[in-house]
C-alpha cells in the first residue's frame, strides 16, 4: 500500500542553523501539506501546496519557513534560522484532492538546542 515517507526521523540542530525536512508524498496525490505538533499539544497546520505553489498557509508559517517541490517526488520544508520553539514533530501529508482524507507520514522529530 502506498505511503508517505519522511526523512530524517530525527534531526538535531543548533539554534540559528538551517534545516531541511524531506517528504515523499504518495505518487498520484496532488495536494501536499506540512503540519507540526509540539510535544503534548495538538497538530497545527503550517502550509498546503498545490500545482507548484502554496495554496494556504497559517500564521505559524512565517518568513523563516519555505516549501519546495524540487522534483516530481520530493516535498521539502526548510526552516532558515531555527529557534528553540521550533522543536516539534513535523508531519508531511498528501491527498488526492483538497477535501479528501489526508495521508500522513511518520514525522520528523526536530530538536533545536
Amino acid at each position, binding site marked *: 500500500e502506498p505511503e508517505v515517507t519522511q526523512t530524517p526521523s530525527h534531526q538535531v540542530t543548533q539554534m540559528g542553523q538551517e534545516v531541511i525536512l524531506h517528504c515523499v508524498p504518495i505518487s498520484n496525490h496532488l495536494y501536499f501539506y506540512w503540519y507540526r505538533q509540539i510535544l503534548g499539544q*495538538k497538530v497545527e*497546520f503550517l502550509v*498546503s501546496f498545490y500545482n507548484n505553489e502554496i495554496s494556504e498557509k497559517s500564521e505559524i508559517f512565517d518568513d523563516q519557513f519555505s516549501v519546495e517541490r524540487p522534483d516530481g517526488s520530493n516535498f521539502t520544508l526548510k526552516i532558515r534560522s531555527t529557534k528553540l520553539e521550533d522543536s516539534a514533530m513535523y508531519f508531511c501529508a498528501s491527498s488526492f484532492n483538497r*477535501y479528501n*482524507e*489526508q495521508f*500522513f507520514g*511518520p514525522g520528523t522529530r526536530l530538536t533545536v538546542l
Partner: protein
Amino acid sequence: SQQGEEDPQALSIQEGENATMNCSYKTSINNLQWYRQNSGRGLVHLILIRSNEREKHSGRLRVTLDTSKKSSSLLITASRAADTASYFCATYNYGQNFVFGPGTRLSVLP
C-alpha cells in the same frame, strides 16, 4: 474561536466496553474527519463524513455528524487494548485550511 474541540480530553475504559468521543466546531465545514495517533507516531485516517451525511460506519467505528449543533461523535464498539491512542477530529472548512482539535486520549485497560 477554535475549531474541532474534542471531549473528553482523556477517557479510560475496560476492554470490551464502548468508547464515545465528541467533537464540536464553530464554522461551516465541507467535511469532518477523525484521525488516530499512537504515541509519538504519525496520524492515521479513520473516517471522513461529509457535511450532507449524518452517520457513517467503518468496522467497529461509527461516526455521527449534527451540523445544526456543529458536533460530531466517534463511537468505538467492543474496544480492545490496541485501540489505546489519541483520537483527533479535524475539520476542512470552505476557503480555510485543515484544523485539528486537541484530541481525546483513550486508554483501554485489559
